[in-house]
């Protein structure tokens, strides 16, 4: 799917470099001449938005490091110093803390888009699994970053999450002590979390590199879920078309991001985290950051410790098996009327679990999270495998060009070709 690069250097220096390291023609082929499907909508701009957020987090993170002290007696006050004394410190920290939220917001949309349009199906399984790995790395990074300010929620969030590992049979307690570097969350824990919080974003950069590589091998999926057949008719060059569309997407996303930074910077945070960590007092109600809430709700919905922890990790791991759980040969929900309904039910379940994760674990909330947790797994393990066998799908257009022309009401000859057989796997 690599574009037929039209890159022909005229400049002598560029020719010299090209003969030794063809990096410029590689960039040209990947981001200028690269053919993108004509029918991409704005949901496809989230890849670029996520790349932007990753860079923004690394840049703000690196400068925050210049002022932060990863030591349990100084961490909290060094963050307050950033907020009050460091030039632009308040803005950099708010950009970084809200940036984490925006990053997760974008990644959830990106994942839901993949599920809606069947972007995980052959031949894009590896691309999808790399995405799940990036999501896991993001969760680890986000969690460890939240511990660094060493407030009450940092400390108790770290305590609860590291204690998840104590559920492992036989060696759980030893693993937990090893993770802590002591008998509770303390200075050694903070130190290592800081080291890993600095390291993991660069691992994410590397896996994103693989993710983009895999994408450029198979080519992008698209709203109609049909493969590119004719580069001339079905695609447009990445630059200027995708470049401009992605840029506009980023601009609108930045508006939302800036609204959070400058108008409601603490809306997504927890007031308890402005109280310094106290290992002797648990806050009355521990809540993780909003982006972990659906998984936290699944953890709490099960009254058994080990089973709860397994269910929580399984809720993430099940995503990696999606390419094989979904048996339908049609990719896009556009042509899968029943799948489309289940997809939206699934979205409601996921958001509902997020709401329940923030509620106290009592009464009707527990029952509701149990029902939604069952529904969450049922979507992957029951609905997707069976739907592929029983669902009557709509006819899939023969090509991207046909889909685009049919939509914009052109020559009737195109419509005749639209009723071809659905895409077959592989």
């Amino acid at each position, binding site marked *: 799917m690599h574009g037929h690069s039209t890159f022909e250097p005229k400049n002598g220096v560029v020719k010299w470099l090209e003969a030794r390291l063809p990096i410029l023609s590689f960039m040209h082929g990947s981001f200028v001449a690269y053919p993108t499907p004509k029918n991409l909508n704005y949901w496809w701009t989230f890849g670029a938005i996520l790349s932007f957020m990753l860079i923004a987090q690394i840049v703000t993170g690196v400068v925050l490091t210049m002022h932060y002290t990863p030591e349990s007696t100084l961490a909290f006050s060094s963050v307050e110093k950033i907020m009050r004394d460091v030039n632009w410190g308040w803005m950099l920290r708010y950009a970084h803390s809200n940036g984490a939220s925006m990053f997760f917001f974008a990644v959830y949309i990106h994942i839901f888009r993949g599920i809606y349009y069947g972007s995980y199906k052959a031949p894009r399984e590896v691309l999808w699994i790399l995405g799940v790995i990036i999501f896991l790395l993001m969760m680890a990074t986000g969690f460890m970053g939240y511990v660094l300010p060493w407030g009450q929620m940092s400390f*108790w969030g770290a*305590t*609860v999450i*590291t*204690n*998840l590992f*104590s559920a492992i049979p036989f060696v759980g307690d030893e693993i937990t*002590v*090893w*993770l*802590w*570097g*002591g*008998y*509770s969350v*303390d200075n*050694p824990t903070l130190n*290592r979390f800081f080291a890993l919080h600095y390291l993991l974003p660069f691992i994410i950069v590397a896996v994103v590199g693989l993710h983009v590589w895999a994408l450029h091998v198979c080519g992008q999926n698209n709203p109609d879920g049909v493969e590119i057949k004719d580069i001339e008719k079905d695609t447009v060059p990445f630059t200027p078309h995708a470049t401009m569309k992605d840029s506009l997407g980023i601009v609108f996303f930045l508006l939302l991001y800036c609204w959070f930074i400058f108008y409601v910077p603490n809306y997504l945070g927890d007031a308890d985290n402005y109280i310094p960590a106290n*290992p*002797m*007092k*648990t*806050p*009355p*109600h*521990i809540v993780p950051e909003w982006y972990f809430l659906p998984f936290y709700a699944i953890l*709490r919905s*099960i*009254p*058994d*410790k*080990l089973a*709860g922890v397994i269910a929580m990790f399984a809720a993430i791991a099940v995503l990696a098996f999606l390419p094989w759980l979904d048996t339908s040969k049609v990719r896009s929900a556009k042509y899968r009327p029943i799948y489309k309904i289940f997809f939206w039910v699934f979205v409601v379940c996921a958001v509902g679990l997020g709401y329940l994760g923030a509620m106290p*674990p*009592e009464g009707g909330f527990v029952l509701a999270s149990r029902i939604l947790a069952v529904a969450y797994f049922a979507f992957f393990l029951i609905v997707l495998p069976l739907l592929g066998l029983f669902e009557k799908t709509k006819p899939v257009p023969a090509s991207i060009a046909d889909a685009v022309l049919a939509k914009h009401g052109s020559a009737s000859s195109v419509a005749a070709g639209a009723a071809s057989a659905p895409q077959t796997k592989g």
Partner: protein
Amino acid sequence: MASATTVEPTRRDFLFIATGAVAAVGAAAVVWPLINQMSPDASTLALASTEVDIGAIPEGQIITIKWRGKPVFISHRTEKEIKEAEDVNVATLPDPQTDAARVQKPQWLIVIGVCTHLGCIPLGHQGEYGGWFCPCHGSVYDTSGRIRKGPAPRNLAVPQYSFLTDTKVKIG
């Protein structure tokens, strides 16, 4: 393999495997310090025990002291609390243990104040069994620190301790 025709293992095969085995042991020997450095260091291990004067704790009060960075509850139990802890059908408990197995002297209950679910600190004199209630995920403990309800799998742990005198206890 270059020597696909050879049936008998040769001296070269032996040397090849032996070299590989030594390399594997070497790699493991290098990895171990990199993993083991994360375990508690010498200064953390040195803080292993602490002494507490319990003479000033009135009956019915629970105090919290810090041991190995964790809270330890010392409860001076009332007659009623002791009776409630003893009058339980042990077989019905999620983690069956008699009260006698958890105390050295019935009026003093000493337990690690960390919920066995996910490590929060339970609140004293709360919950329907008059013992502890964990605010995080709703585990309920009785006056012997035993789990009675909620997601926690085990009773509150009893640390190693000994009475140095009637009013002095050494934990650890």
